């Protein structure tokens, strides 16, 4: 990566991530990131992008902010990570704050209440569709489906704490997918 490239300024980092944070409506932030980082700014090549995305998806936290941390750090160290992450979060945070103020002021208005009911009903449909789209492989493979169901029942129905659930279930799920030696696989 960046062999003898001119150093990216912190302001530029903030602006590029800020533009993504401001324009990426309706999720799917990864597509916006790829367009900006790989195609437009050429800060990462395709492999570098996929490697950063892989780390982002494995570690806890949001993919979008983890990507900001990783790319910001590679380009400008700790200050770069901070600039990119703030750029990613701030526009949405400011807008959601504005929506929140309006919400607190208006939510008891019966007309607003029915709009919010419709918005919430639609948001469930969106979340369900996203879940099915990224999870269909897990849902049709029996040895994965077992874990899907167990986690759903523990956390969703019995409200077992997420920390306890992860400690109990994750090692088992990783063990099921453990790397096999050639002999075992044969």
């Amino acid at each position, binding site marked *: 990566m960046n062999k003898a490239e001119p150093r990216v300024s912190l302001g530029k980092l903030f602006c590029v991530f800020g533009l993504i*944070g*401001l*324009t990426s*409506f*309706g*999720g*799917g*932030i990864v597509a916006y990131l790829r367009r900006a980082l790989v195609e437009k700014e050429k800060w990462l090549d395709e492999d570098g992008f996929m490697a950063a995305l892989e780390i982002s*998806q*494995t*570690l*806890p*936290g*949001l*993919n979008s*902010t*983890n990507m*900001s*941390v*990783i790319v910001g*750090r590679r380009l400008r160290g700790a200050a770069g990570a901070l600039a990119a*992450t703030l750029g990613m*979060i701030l526009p*949405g945070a400011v*807008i*959601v*704050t504005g929506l*929140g103020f309006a*919400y607190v002021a208006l*939510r008891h208005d019966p*007309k607003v209440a029915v*709009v919010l*009911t*419709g*918005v*919430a*009903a*639609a*948001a*469930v*449909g*969106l*979340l369900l*569709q996203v*879940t099915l789209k990224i*999870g269909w492989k*897990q849902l049709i493979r029996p040895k994965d489906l077992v*874990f*899907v169901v167990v*986690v*759903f029942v523990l*956390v*969703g129905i019995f409200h077992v704490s*997420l*920390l306890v659930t*992860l400690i109990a279930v*994750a090692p088992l799920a*990783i063990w099921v*997918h*453990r790397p096999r030696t050639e002999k075992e696989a044969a």
Partner: protein
Amino acid sequence: MSKIVELVNVFALLSLLAVGGGTAVLPEMEHVTVERRHWVSDRQFTEIYSLGQLAPGPNMTCVALIGYEVSGVAGLLAVLVAFFFPACLLCYFVSKVWDAAEGSPWRDAVQRGMAPIVIGLMLAGCYALGKTASYNPAKDWDFNLLTLGIGASVALILSVTRINPALTILAGGAAGFYLLG
């Protein structure tokens, strides 16, 4: 002040537990903030999450509004920092050493093992939101058929078209206005 400390404790832990993205902690967040701490009602929680779908950027910035409900602007800022900073800090340090694990077959095992867990958590999130937003036992069947219908229509439309999801959320609001009012 003690409320701020409580907010920070809850959201910092949620930050570090957010495996596979923010939506995976939705069911836990709903349980802690609604049923255990009574910071917001079931309905408020669902509406705050929905508002987040209308703002650009990471869709979980809306959690800041739970902080606002509890302690005003100070609560909003506290939750924002607590929910984003710990995971970012972890990512900063782990991504530095990550390359050392390049090519380890266990890295792949971790990813494939965690995938069904994330899906289970996301389904639990759908259930946590849906038990207020899609089926409300306090309302009659006509009302619930409409809310279930709006959700099902959105899921179907997004499966067969490439329309921006934020538009379907707005359409849901319009449907609510004309059909439920």
